[in-house]
């Protein structure tokens, strides 16, 4: 009975991971996701798939780093990875903000310059 349940979750996680990998790939192909941001998603999905197939691997690694319960290792590393990725996104947003500001200012200055030129011309 126990064996049956554990296989079921393994199959579910393999299907979900593969579906996710497929979806990410489609986004990249369609150009909706830039490769530099896609790397994170592809790598984490591949990790998910590896551990869906190789179930003992999780226990082995948990024992290696000294975590008593393997699921805790999963949660801890997933939360850590998400935090790092969120920080990365904040950096990206900040850079975009700066670039956007410079462009808006340049546009306003160029519009004023253009108006000055056309005023001079019509004089």
């Amino acid at each position, binding site marked *: 009975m126990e064996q049956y349940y554990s296989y079921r979750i393994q199959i579910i996680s393999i299907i979900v991971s593969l579906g996710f990998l497929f979806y990410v790939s489609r986004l990249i192909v369609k150009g909706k996701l830039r490769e530099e941001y896609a790397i994170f998603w592809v790598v984490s999905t591949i990790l998910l798939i590896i551990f869906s197939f190789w179930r003992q691997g999780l226990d082995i690694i948990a024992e290696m780093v000294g975590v008593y319960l393997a699921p805790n290792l999963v949660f801890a590393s997933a939360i850590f990875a998400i935090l790092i990725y969120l920080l990365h996104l904040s950096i990206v947003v900040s850079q975009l903000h700066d670039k956007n*500001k410079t462009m*808006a*200012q340049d*546009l*306003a*200055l160029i*519009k*004023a310059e253009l108006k000055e030129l056309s005023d001079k011309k019509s004089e």
Partner: protein
Amino acid sequence: MTKLAAIIPAYNEEESITSVVEALLALRIDGLTVIPVVVNDSSKDRTAEIVSKLNCILLDLPVNLGIGGAVQTGFRYAFDKGFDYAIQVDGDGQHPAKEIVKLYDTMTSTDANIVIGSRFLTKEGFQSSGLRRFGINYLKNLIRLFSGVSILDNTSGFRMLDRSALALVNDSYPDEYPEPESIIMYVKNGLKIKEVPVLMEERQGGVSSIRYFDQLYYMVKVSLAIIYTYIRNK
């Protein structure tokens, strides 16, 4: 002839902008040409349309940048066009044009690179509420701790900059609530700041860029900005 750009950041100021610009155009100071430069920060009302009919420069931002980004646009214009000085004048009528001469006199008679018009040096004119004064006092102490200079009215946007200050803000200027943290930036880059007493009016229209519920956020943000500006310019 010395040229002064009066930079007016305006966000939804259709009620007051005309009188602010006209007061600046009517201003006569010996040896000084004052040119109003309105920076329309993507207003939702008719500010841009009204300003385009006035005898002044309009810098029309396509997206809303906030007060810092808008003022910097004006500073960049003044720097590019070879103005000798630039002064920031609020679009809501808080900063009376006739007070500009006080800042200009201090600018020309001392070695100051930045002159700040202060409400608090003499306690006259519009003074601001108690809680806000408490915050300004806290900022004064924080700024003194990190820069060694004591600026009483550190949130005042009524400031005149010379070309060396313009060159600095041309490169970088804070976006949100720029006034207190820019003081640190000026001092750390070796510029001199002087404060002169001015009379300010209560705003004629519009709302303050610092609203009631945002005050805690304002304090935390500005405190952090002061510390990081200090480290960055060390």
